[in-house]
């Protein structure tokens, strides 16, 4: 079966998508010759810079998070493949400053390998870089084995609060502490209902049977988690939310952030319906839905499904969440 995608040559996928991305967001970002994505108007040098890296094919993530109140540089890799260490070290050099660089890495083998090798070189060169790993996927391991847990779309919350802290002039230590506190209080669970095709290979990723859904699917179609019969929005939300609440040990009376991240062909209509399901469950449990969001932030091509992200919020995290930001994927005023 031919792939039903509007693409040209597979080897041009990333450079072409970045060209279109730059055209569509010229007021917010620039794509440099080496494909690094930077802000159109750079942040003041006396503030902490924030850098991340990650494979392409998840648009708008991660380069769509570059902008005021969010990232300074994103290092896009090939489709679903982390960028290599040479490009990452270039980004760290470019971001380097006395105030320091916060380096946010999503826990996937390639990203971790590239970032560790780049970090080692950065240290040797005396760059002031501090790494924070995000790994909030509760499907892939217990909270006690954090390295088993993948970094999913919850990175949006980590980048948001760290980005706001950096914009406010907080120190590298403070920004890192905030990022880590958000990360430690964050949990994500994904559900998939239909497959996607890899835009370069044409291979099918994450085939799901006609009447089934897979809770715990990874964001590259890596299998995992519980295959079960399709359920309604209310039922699915309740199953996923229960698992997230349990993982984070959220108690009655606490305040949470909830994000419904559509991964591809699941409509915004459905994301909103799931969000109201979440609200109903939280109301029953007397947990306060302090903030919420729905939309496509980190996609898996045209896969059907979504990621549900839950975060325990405190006063400072809430105020950082509310701070302004303006990037291709999101805007808070």
């Amino acid at each position, binding site marked *: 079966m031919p792939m039903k995608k509007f693409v040209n040559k597979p080897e041009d996928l990333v450079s072409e998508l970045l060209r279109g991305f730059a055209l569509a967001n010229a007021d917010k970002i620039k794509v440099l010759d080496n494909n690094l994505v930077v802000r159109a108007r750079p942040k003041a040098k006396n503030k902490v810079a924030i850098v991340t890296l990650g494979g392409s094919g998840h648009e708008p993530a991660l380069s769509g998070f570059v902008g005021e109140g969010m990232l300074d540089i994103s290092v896009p890799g090939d489709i679903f493949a982390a960028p290599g*260490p040479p490009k990452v070290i270039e980004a760290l050099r470019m971001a380097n400053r006395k105030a320091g660089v916060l380096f946010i890495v999503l826990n996937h083998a390639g990203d971790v390998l590239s970032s560790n090798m780049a970090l080692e070189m950065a240290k040797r060169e005396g760059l002031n870089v501090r790494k924070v790993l995000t790994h909030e996927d509760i499907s892939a391991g217990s909270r006690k084995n954090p390295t088993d847990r993948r970094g999913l779309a919850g990175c949006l919350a980590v980048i948001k609060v760290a980005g706001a802290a950096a914009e406010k002039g907080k120190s590298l230590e403070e920004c890192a502490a905030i990022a880590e506190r958000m990360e430690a209080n964050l949990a994500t669970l994904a559900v998939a209902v239909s497959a996607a095709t890899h835009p370069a*290979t044409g*291979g099918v990723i994450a085939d799901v049977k006609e009447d089934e859904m897979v809770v715990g699917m990874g964001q590259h179609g890596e299998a995992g988690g519980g295959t079960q019969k399709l359920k309604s929005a209310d039922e699915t939300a309740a199953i996923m939310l229960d698992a997230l609440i349990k993982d984070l040990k959220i108690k009655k009376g606490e305040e949470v952030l909830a994000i419904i991240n559509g991964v591809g062909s699941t409509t915004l209509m459905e994301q909103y319906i799931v969000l109201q399901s979440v609200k109903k469950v939280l109301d029953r449990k007397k947990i306060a839905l302090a903030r919420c969001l729905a939309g496509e932030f980190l996609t898996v091509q045209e896969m059907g499904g979504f990621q549900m992200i839950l975060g325990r919020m405190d006063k400072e995290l809430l105020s950082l969440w509310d701070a302004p930001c303006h990037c291709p994927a999101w805007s808070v005023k």
Partner: protein
Amino acid sequence: MPDKFVQAQLSAMLMGAVARIKANHKELSRLDSFGGDGDHGSAMLRAADAIAKTVSGAKKKATKDLLSDTAWAVMGIDGGATGPLLGSFFLGMSDAAGKGKSLDAKGLSALFISGLEGVMKNTPARAGDKTMLDALIPAVEAMQTGAKAGAGIPDCLKSAADAAAKGAETTSKMKARFGRAKNLGDKSIGNKDAGAVSMSLIFKGFSEGVESA
């Protein structure tokens, strides 16, 4: 074929790996699609192109430099887990390469050992974890055994390639504990690890490249 190994042989060895990978990339992606994201073949294809480009631009480079250029080229492919790991293999080899222009079997074996160390420094994965290491470790060991026994480079590489292939074969009974496939858990049993197969193809190609040089 001389029993000392100079730049031309090293290039031929690398180009042998390039040819093997190019001929089998689809199978590598297929293997990666069981528990991974189905792109290992395309990453390896880009790695192969990067190696070929480095080799063809490397007229009369010292072994050390050819290997480190190869390492950086491979790391530069944006190849997910593959780029950094394969890159650190070549970087490790380069680290051990002396100033000398030629290599015997023992010398090449020492380079491979250092390459393996380069990989192991960068990943907590060990033998039995269903990764490329399950092909790389037996290959390096076979090379070492052969060299110690006084065999020449071609014979040593042939036994290294056989050992790598056998190692890759054994991964189908293993449970993945690293890389994207680890999320499959027990279900990862039954298929060979894509990275282990590509490592075995690399050694097969090394051996073929040297034979034909």
